[in-house]
């Protein structure tokens, strides 16, 4: 299975290596660097690279390449999924998964990697189990450890390893028992210049932060569970119960976890909360172009659209843009030709707009007038699919927990502006 792991930073240095079987020379990464050079963008490095004796499977997260060395047949997704799990664990432990954080905690990283894989096969990947084996570093603990000489490493086998609920550690105690659930939905959409939706889907997740004493058994029911078309669960969710009653029943892990993610693909269910009107024109032979863009809310059920950020890759011929934003600030990078406009909150009474002129390279031919516009936004207290949690009940423990549910809608991969030709155009 996984033979070795190399961590490569954006400048191409290997800053950590770990071997689970016999040592593989780091020169194997040269094949990776070659592929990296060939790729135009960092994300275009193929995830699987064959070399004469090994296979390199890599993922890119936080501008670090995690390169796993494989010697024989193994499902590539197995490795990829594991590497992502490693990153998630690091993030969980150190808050950030950056090169600096890894270097600062190199010993913990090493201990973690040692526990996560045995002979290249995943051993313990549940964060609750790992945290019992190796305690996350905190300033307080570091100080205490230096004074008392105690260690960060658990001496007992984590109880989770053997129990039927391996994701939950035992003996959890809190004075404030609380369970928070965040329903976060992201809209992925491609919208045509005329405003009609080409494709739209909702990707939703329910992230939980559960801090409850003992072994609580929770059930979460929805007002409209039928909306959840395609779901994937945290292993703690009882699948049969969901199938039969559409109720989520689970013994939660301790702390933060993703309870489920779902997918709403039926297009008529996806409301598009903002619209964009834009008009970008270039005149043949002139070195000036007009730029006009207006944003407005729609179908937001009275909720404010916040943190709006518009970005667009302007045509290469554009030298500079001289624009006027009715609110927020805009920047134009003349090198990458990237225009970004930080709009902030949309006020339905006074719609934000960005207008002005663009100067073009002299003599260049008329550029394409329909650049893609990517929009980011957030809407608090609303799940755009209309999903609503009905109730949350706890069984198995006596105390009364504090419960909270939050909804949020965000733009995922939300792009607009491209003009779709009519079929007739194709037919010429």
């Amino acid at each position, binding site marked *: 299975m996984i033979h070795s792991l190399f961590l490569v930073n954006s400048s191409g240095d290997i800053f950590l290596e770990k071997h689970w079987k016999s040592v593989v020379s780091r020169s194997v990464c040269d094949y990776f660097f070659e592929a990296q050079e060939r790729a135009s963008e960092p994300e275009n490095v193929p995830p699987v690279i064959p070399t004469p004796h090994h296979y390199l499977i890599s993922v890119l997260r936080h501008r670090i390449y995690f390169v796993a060395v494989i010697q024989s*047949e193994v499902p590539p997704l197995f490795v990829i999924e594991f590497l992502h799990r490693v990153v998630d664990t690091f993030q969980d432990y150190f808050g950030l998964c950056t090169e600096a954080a890894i270097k600062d905690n*190199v010993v913990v990283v090493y201990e973690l990697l040692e526990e996560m894989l045995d002979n290249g096969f995943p051993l313990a990947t549940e964060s609750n189990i790992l945290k019992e084996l190796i305690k996350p570093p905190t300033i307080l603990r570091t100080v205490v450890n230096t004074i008392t000489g105690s260690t960060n*490493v658990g*001496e007992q086998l984590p109880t989770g390893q053997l129990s039927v609920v391996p994701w939950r550690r035992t003996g959890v105690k809190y004075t404030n028992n609380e369970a928070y659930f965040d329903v976060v939905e992201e809209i992925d959409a491609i919208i045509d210049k005329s405003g009609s939706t080409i494709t739209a889907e909702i990707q939703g997740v329910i992230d939980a932060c559960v801090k409850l004493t003992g072994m609580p058994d929770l059930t979460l029911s929805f007002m409209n569970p039928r909306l959840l078309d395609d779901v994937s669960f945290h292993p703690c969710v009882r699948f049969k119960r969901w199938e039969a009653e559409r109720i989520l029943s689970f013994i939660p892990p301790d702390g933060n976890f993703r309870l489920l993610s779902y997918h709403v693909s039926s297009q008529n269910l996806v409301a598009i909360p903002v619209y964009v009107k834009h008009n970008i024109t270039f005149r043949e032979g002139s070195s000036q172009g007009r730029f006009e863009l207006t944003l407005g809310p729609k179908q937001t059920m009275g909720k404010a659209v916040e943190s709006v950020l518009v970005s667009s890759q302007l045509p290469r011929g554009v030298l500079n843009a001289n624009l006027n934003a009715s609110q927020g600030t805009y920047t134009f990078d003349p090198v990458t030709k990237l225009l970004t406009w930080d709009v902030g909150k949309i006020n339905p009474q006074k719609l934000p707009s960005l207008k002005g002129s663009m100067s073009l390279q002299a003599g260049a031919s008329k550029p394409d007038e329909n650049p893609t516009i990517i929009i980011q936004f957030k809407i608090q207290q609303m799940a755009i699919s209309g999903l609503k949690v009905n109730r949350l009940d706890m069984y198995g423990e006596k105390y009364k927990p504090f419960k909270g549910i939050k909804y949020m809608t965000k733009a995922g991969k939300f792009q607009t502006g491209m003009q779709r030709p009519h079929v007739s155009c*194709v037919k010429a």
Partner: protein
Amino acid sequence: MSSGSGFGDEKGGSSSVGEPEYGHDPASGGIFSSDYKRHDDLKEMLDSNKDSLKLEAMKRIVAMIARGKNASDLFPAVVKNVACKNIEVKKLVYVYLVRYAEEQQDLALLSISTFQRGLKDPNQLIRASALRVLSSIRVTIIVPIMMLAIKEAASDMSPYVRKTAAHAIPKLYSLDPEQKDQLIEVIEKLLADKTTLVAGSVVMAFEEVCPERIDLIHKNYRKLCNLLIDVEEWGQVVIINMLTRYARTQFLNPNVNESLLEESGEKAFYGSDDEEGKEEKAEAAALAKRKPYVMDPDHRLLLRNTKPLLQSRNAAVVMAVAQLYFHLAPKAEVGVIAKALVRLMRSHSEVQYVVLQNVATMTIKRRGMFEPYLKSFYIRSTDPTQIKILKLEVLTNLANETNISTILREFQTYIKSMDKDFVAATIQAIGRCATNIGEVRDTCLNGLVQLLSNRDELVVAESVVVIKKLLQMQPEQHSDIIKHMAKLTDNIQVPMARASILWLIGEYCEHVPKIAPDVLRKMAKTFTNEEDIVKLQIINLAAKLYLTNSKQTKLLTQYVLNLAKYDQNYDIRDRARFIRQLIVPTDKSGALSKYAKKLFLALKPAPVLESPFKDRDHFQLGSLSHLLNAKAGGYQELPDWPETAPDPSVRNVEVKDSVPEWTKCSSREKRKEKKVEKPFYSDSEEESGPTESADSESDSASGSGSGSESEESGSGSESEESREESESEQEDKEDEEDKRKKKKKTDRGKVKAPAVESPESEESSGAEEKNRAQKVKGRRSGSESESEEEEESESESSRSESESESESESDTDAKKKKKAPVTKPPPKQAKKESKKEKKEMSLLDLDDFEPTPSPQVTPVNNFLSSSLVTDLEGLSLTDTVMAPTTIAPSGSVKTYELLHRITGEGLGVEYCFSRQPFSPDAHMVAVQIMFTNNTNAETKNLHVEDPKLQSGMRIKEFPEIELLPPGEMVTVVMGIDFCDSTQAANFQLCTHIRKFFVSIQPPVGELMMPVFMTENEFKKEQGQLMGMNEISEKLTLGEKCQNEHGIVQRVTSAANVSRVPCGSDKECRFAGKTVSSGILVLVTVATKEERAAQLTVNCEKMVIGTMLVKDILQALTQ
């Protein structure tokens, strides 16, 4: 432990030097001038007696290892600390040891005794980590010690240690392959382990050490299937992949015999006679092997138990299940994976990359599966190029006549992208669509020609290349395009495009006789500045022109050939020399020149533009080899399906030959066993209990105790039950003997085909429900959950229970059950069936429909007529169940037309009233709808929309049918609450393109369901429904229904009522109640002399009564 005060002693100096270094990169060596000195310092710290110093030193050493710096010279100093009490120091020493032991074998041996001691430690974590490190030290000398340790750990109390042992197996194997045989023994032992913790790891070991020993899996197959859902996710991936291979060697191809399914109809009658039942079964089982395909229950078990894992959060698990379904499932069921795979597309881009590769392969084989998700593959400008290109591949594969216009429109947008590689790929994709779909070829070609005037040269060049390929298919019609392209030679600089144009002109010079020589003239001028591929094509063009039009081009050709003769590239020189000899007739030129024209202007076949993913599915999907399209080391080929299924009994966990006997006799011949059997539940628990608390039993017990669903506990119970079976065998056998003699059954069960097994399990599961209450009481409280399990029971467990149930069954019931056809659906369907399998219609995935036991019980044994009718009806129903998604109605059920295939534009829809309780809502009438796709295109997204109902009426739509392939038929069940009226239910039937208004109007007889009552009850009820509520009519019986049998048949077919026993043979009585409001309907037919008779209907609702009288009258008088 030491405290801060320790800094004061003699080592204080070094430690205080070390202090400020804490957390810094030791390799940077800012403070220490040389490596030598630094290591000296570390050695000193390691030698100290302070744990904190040791820890500090070890941390720095590990940091060095992490950075890839050499720390091997510290080995002696580090290895001394292997026995350190501080667990963190110890762990770090382990890390060091594993890293350098291979280089310093002799010194590493010093540490071995510590690990040996660790292996005996009472703490399981320490035992496990000792084994982990010991097995990770790659020193050949210790192989025997490792072997011993592994063997010992394999029978350790703690499943965690056993898991570690499983991990150690491949380590030892890679160190010394000679140990294989011994290791296989250990694997065999661990495979039998019942804990989920071990399962994944041992299968991993199996895959690395002895993947060819598929025979080791037989006995564990069912256990693995059942445990699967509780195994940790990584183990699931490995197990699923292994089971895919296993299934390929053990089961038959589910898609091989589809066309033969219809033939199986006649078999419904095999089971009709009780005495002959067995013989027939054996025969039919043999028959089944040759003719219609019957899925092995174990095959079904695998499919059923993996399906929920499509919901896993782990992409690798989802992919593993998807490939399993792709390789193993019947065609009609593969569709379920599409949705899950599309979901994965939202994941990290690396996941997307792998998933898309696999989807691309799948779309070639099963395009229909992904068609509904077409839009999910639309490309976003933010996608990385490699993802874009893969999505493009998928879109191209999905293109067909119906969606091509949408797809082409998308492609048009993509051409405007700034990502040039992507644009080029898009143009290629348009070319492929054009070759694959004849209808749009001209459209595409025109579109591509338009692109020739694009501003971007790359676009133009790519278009030229694609156009060239397309033109080759029908050059005659497109000479204008060739002319257009000839003009482009002035502008296009991309060599490949120039070469393509030249080739085209040369090839079709006869279509453009005027332009061709001119192009050659221009090219001759620029010859020296061209790229090599262009030069070669210029030579070709010259040669072809010379052959067709030597008058005009003779000189030009000579000129070009002369230029080529002195070219720098020897390929070009060679070509020139070769062509000159061939085409220019000289004295020396041989016979070949006569054929020059044939050589050059032979008709060239058009290139086939096909997907690079074609035929990639001979690699197991999801594998590395599939991704690379090359066999990776250690890849296990996916075997072809066997011609005939290997003996399925190898998977039975008991002693081989006794099992089938036991199974066979269970339901019928052995009725007295219940008392004997029951205690085994508790016995088996006690017996396996002592090993240790954390074993499977406690797993399942606590699982179910804490409210976990039965999937968990089911796994535990499976193994228990299998054990119990083998134990009870002894007693069973004795009893069996007697019974067998009595009943004169010959023993034919030893080689039971899978088909024979299932009926029994089916029966038993039906009866189980009955006995459930009883059983729960009989069991220890600890196994409360087992009543739940039984609902889930797999073939195995239900078999064990079948004997107990049969006691409570009446003779007739048992007999009737025996009539169950030989070819039965596998246990998946079986599990939820009611005991009346004649009513059985639940199908593969209609889990929602859980038929409740039908109230229609016929208690009188000689009451053959009506029960036989229904029986036969039921039999034929169950028989056709083999076709995975169709329920063909038997002949006696009247079908009505919902949509004629002409009005439905090829979609024919019929419906019938299945007379089966509609389980989601008891007040609804079950209407079975049969769709037939008579077109040659696929029909998609069949669903109900916009019902227009009378007030109070309700409708429960069937689940949307995603896809109906051409020529296929599919059956669904929907429920309608007619509110006891014969008003039609109107609704729209929608496909992905059309909507049809349809209506279902029930005959009054279908609005009721049978009620069982005794003669006295009947009379009592009848007494209360006199006067206005009674409707009588005199009639003359039709010719064919003068006897009792005829009457019963006519009445039961006209109305869904059941017969009520009656003392007088002059009267036939029937009872039923309306489905919606449960109002009684009583029917009496009193026969008189000649053919006269009187029909009486008693019902509170007069409308129903009147209509029913009319219907029955008609039925009887015909």
